[in-house]
């Protein structure tokens, strides 16, 4: 499916890691992502899919966010989790 490939491509480009290594349970920090890498990946995903990912850089990626806006807490510690977040946000954009 397209979204997972796009997410992997963005992470792969940012971290200079072949997309094949980006398995669903691969952790971003273990892949070498530093805080600036994470915000750049998030930015690239937002630009690509025209979504807004509720993530704050001064919170742990494992327990980030959204609770404040009344939404569910998101977590983006792994490639798979990030793909899920993007999937949900893209889905939410489609008019019912």
């Amino acid at each position, binding site marked *: 499916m397209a979204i997972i490939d796009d997410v992997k491509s963005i992470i792969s480009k940012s971290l200079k890691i072949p997309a094949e290594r980006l398995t669903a349970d691969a952790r971003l920090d273990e892949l070498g992502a530093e805080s*600036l890498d994470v*915000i*750049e990946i*998030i*930015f690239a995903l*937002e*630009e690509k899919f025209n979504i*807004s990912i509720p993530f704050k850089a001064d919170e742990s990626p494992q327990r980030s966010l959204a609770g404040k806006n009344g939404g569910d807490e998101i977590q983006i510690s792994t490639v798979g989790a990030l793909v899920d977040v993007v999937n949900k946000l893209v889905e939410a954009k489609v008019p019912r």
Partner: protein
Amino acid sequence: MNRVVVTGIGVVSPIGSTREKFWSGLIAARSGIGPISVASADRLTTRIAAQVLDFDPSQHFDPKRENLLDRFSQFAVVAARAAVRDAELDITEEMALQAATIVGNAAGGQNSVDESYFKLYGQNSPRVHPLTIPRWMINAAVSQVSMDLGIKGPTYTIASACASGTHAIGHAFQLVRTGQAPIALAGGTESCLTVGTIKCWEALRVLSADTCRPFSKTRSGLVLGEGAAMVVLETRERAVARGAPIYAELLGFGMSADAGDIIAIDSDGAARAMRAALVDAHVNPEDVDYVNAHGTGTALNDRSETVALRKAFGASAERLAVSSSKGVLGHGLGAAGAFEFAATALALHTQTIPPTANFEEVDPDCDLDFVPNVARNATIQNAMSSSFAFGGLNAVLVLSRA
């Protein structure tokens, strides 16, 4: 008090990004002013600028680093590396802990600001690049220099508009002279040639439509420039002990504020800074041979600066050689003072006075020896480099032959 010397010079300039190209361009009065090349230039009236056209950041930074640095920081880092190389300086861990880095800058990361604001206002984008702030902040350049070279002592930015580079070198001089830092890297950087910034300069109505002709009766305004210059300052003792190349000795630093007009130079304030620098240097006015002037090419600056030189030097103004480098370099704003300090040090080193480029006609209001268009061999024992900024902030350095 330590004696302080200049042992390294690094530049990124509109006339080339090596010390050799910089100096040969200044001596030949080869102007770096040319047709402007910026995004959305059709929105501008201005058709000219002194741009750094041969700078390829990918030759100096890996993509990840490059992505973090606005062009004004890239210039500063490349000039700083060149200065350290030029000084044949090996920065040891012990030295790094005490060494100072001071960078002058006027406008911050305007390229990054412009890009983000264009997305926001021009393209109605809901988001801007996440690294806009770390690229934009006015201390980004000095922080990147410190990170790049591992310098961990006193490190900060000085913002005094067009005097920033001179103030930065002056403060670094004081740190080395008093022993607070054994060595200092100092200078200035600027890169604000974006359509937004240039439009604001146009609104102020001080830009020339054709070129920059300092002190010439036909002068028509200033021309915006960009680039960076960094120098290595260290104690004379250390420089001699390690057999370093010595370009010049830095003798004095003078500062003043006009407390008057936000734009117009005040000849009293400028003259006070010059006199303060001479006093600090223990040099008599009659013992100065060359002044690298601020000389922006605006009607008012050049006239008032002439008056200021007469006030500071009295009768000995008649025997002074005075030149402005802005006909060649344009106005480098935060980099200008550093460019001109480098030019003054090289004038002392080579015993050659760089000319005032684009000089066409004598102005009765600017009646000093402005070394028009042709470089001059001369015996230069002491020289001065002066900067008079918007906001009425003045900074002047006095150097001598090493």
